[in-house]
């Protein structure tokens, strides 16, 4: 043989799209940036510290776990795929700005180690780590978390009275400024949940980059709004306040759309997001508290069930059935 060089031998296809898991996750981080910036603008240095510590806690937990598991630091750094950054960011954005600084670290560590790594790492978790981490924080530090809200302008922590709890408690919805709700001005709430504009910008970015199907969060949000309206005697003035308050936007755009914990088929996703909307609106009405993360956690557990029963039919499937029946 004139040419003795050996070439790479592998299965087809020999060309692949440039998309990587890392690329997807970096794009999600970029999509969360507007919300991070809005949070820091509205809530100040404390918000920045909380977000920083939750991301740091998440990334550090992943590294520590893998080091204990016996991997080399160099390999871990090489294989680092930014999923823990996304988890950390989401946790930081979904807690209040007056929360003590150790809470985000605990929440992130729980999310990464218990919810993600123990189940096998990226792609193997049963429930969304960020949602579980947030709930872990709320459950473990109940009093502290409830006192963590802050209305940006007054600068005073207030107890439990976000706009949402006000609405659910029967406050006059017509007195609310929809624009304030949308922009997050003068609003108490979690760092990343108040400015809906920033979240929507992030959602549009993800949709444009082909990372999420924007239809799914829209289904979730619209179903929640409509069902809230229906539960309140078809009073449509509840529609906008209900979809613009609480953690719905953040949950719908960034948490419920998580690949690993959402169904794998179009029909499955439609079922999943409609169910999310219905349960969210129903539970909000029944309990009077914000439930989005609990509902996402709950519905995550139904995803394997949906995926078991909703599967795609192969091209040409229907006719084959007919032939069999003959």
């Amino acid at each position, binding site marked *: 043989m004139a*040419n003795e060089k050996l070439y790479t031998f592998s299965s087809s296809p020999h060309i*692949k799209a440039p998309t990587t898991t890392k690329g997807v996750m970096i794009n999600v981080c970029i999509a969360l940036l507007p919300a991070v910036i809005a949070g820091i603008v509205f809530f100040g240095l404390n918000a920045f510290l909380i977000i920083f510590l939750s991301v740091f806690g998440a990334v550090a937990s992943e590294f520590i776990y893998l080091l204990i598991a016996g991997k080399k630091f160099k390999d871990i750094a090489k294989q680092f795929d930014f999923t823990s950054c996304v988890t950390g960011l989401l946790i930081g954005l979904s807690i209040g700005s007056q929360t003590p600084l150790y809470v985000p670290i605990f929440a992130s560590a729980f999310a990464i180690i218990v919810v993600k790594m123990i189940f*096998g790492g990226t792609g193997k978790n049963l429930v969304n780590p960020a949602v579980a981490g947030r709930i872990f924080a709320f459950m473990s530090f109940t009093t502290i978390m409830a006192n963590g809200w802050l209305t940006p302008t007054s600068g005073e922590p207030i107890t439990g009275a976000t706009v949402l709890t006000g609405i659910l408690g029967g406050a006059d919805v017509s007195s609310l400024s929809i624009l304030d709700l949308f922009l997050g001005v003068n609003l108490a709430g979690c760092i990343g949940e108040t400015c809906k504009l920033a979240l929507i910008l992030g959602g549009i970015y993800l949709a444009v980059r082909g990372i999420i199907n924007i239809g799914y969060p829209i289904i979730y949000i619209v179903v929640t709004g409509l069902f809230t309206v229906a539960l309140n005697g078809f009073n449509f003035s509840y529609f906008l306040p209900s979809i613009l308050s609480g953690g719905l936007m953040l949950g719908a755009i960034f948490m419920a759309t998580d*690949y690993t914990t959402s*169904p794998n088929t179009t029909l499955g996703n439609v079922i999943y997001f409609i169910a999310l909307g219905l349960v969210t609106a129903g539970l909000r009405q029944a309990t009077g508290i914000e439930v989005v993360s609990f509902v996402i956690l709950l519905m995550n557990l139904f995803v394997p069930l949906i995926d078991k029963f909703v599967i795609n039919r192969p*091209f040409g499937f229907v*006719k084959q059935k007919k032939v069999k029946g003959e």
Partner: protein
Amino acid sequence: MSIRKGKNYPYGIHVKDMKELCAECPIIKMPAPKKVYISMSQHIGAPAIPIVNVGDKVVKRQLIGKESGVISANVYSSVCGTVVGIEDIVTASGLKMKHVIIENDGGDEEIFFDNIENFEPKTIIERIRLAGIVGLGGAGFPTAVKLSPSIKLDTLIINGAECEPYLNCDYRLMLENTEDIYRGVKYAALALGIKKIIIGIEANKPKAIEAFSKYHDIEVVVLKKQYPMGSEKHLIYCTTGRKVPCGKMPFDVGCCVQNIKTVIAIKHAIEDNKALSSTVLTVSGGGIKEPKNLRIQIGTSLDDIIEFCGGLVGDSVKIIAGGPMMGKAMIGTNSYTRKTNSGYLFLTDKETNVDEPTNCINCARCAKNCPMRLMPMYIESFALSGDFESAKKYGAMNCLECGSCAYNCPAKRPLVQSIAMAKSKIKELKI
């Protein structure tokens, strides 16, 4: 004279087509090499049996391998010269095949078939069988068998999609040998007793569409540029609207699909009395100096082709026989042109992807893109855990191995490999 748009099929992918490397290069005839290595199994089915001995003098288009069964095909010499060996050679694709090695003496003597007296389906099919024509799109199924279906068909579809990136040989033939294709198609239609002839061409080949619009009895269907439009089942759906049921063949819906090169071979066998001894292929990729479309003698070695195309440049990491989506990687250059070759690609590490696979993140891109509407991530995980029964239940046997799933996988999982493994295991274990 009629041109219409094909039916839309929503599942499939868009790949960078890279055809510009040699789409406008006319087909060049590569001179016959000093030595040819002619494989005895250039088709699906039983290998041909060599009927020459070492030391025999042969002339061009002399029968050297005789078909050995119904699903088999004759093999002819592509040069004049002396047989210097009949050997089992392990080629770079990893398969061991019997090759007849002929040293070219540069002679131009040729053997032709007798003229066909009466053009009946029977005589045409017999001639096609005799000439050793097989499906030249890659499958290599004997064309004579394909043209004698057990049931009556009503539509003959010519596959001018050429959806694989890089490859241009069908496109060049459509431009340069339009009349040959037309005549070959008419013979195939005559053999099948079919009136309705459709040619499906992807929308990115306007010149080819233009070339065929002059024939009043061929319907040109313009297909959306989408991979894998050249798959039989999708071509049939987009041109006729018929769905081939799972596990069935095109003839079950009254269609017969033929490749461009095959119909040209039919024309040559019937009108010019020539047996199949050469093929047209594309040599392309970033690793070859001069990408070309070549008419090449069967049995030409890859080393000779590389030399004719100016040699290798840069650092090619992969050599592929066929297109980049479905072609086979080869470990070295000891490969010899077969009837079914449609191209050789030399890919640099910028063009090909050698990333390590990571965990599946359940993004479901594979399921969203699968042209067969399968769920590759499930089939893969069943295959890897050895649960082949479930893999079959999820439709593994319908997989075309087109690579749409693995192309878009962000975790770079070897989905096609796992599914192909499941398929062979299902066959082996008779699940």
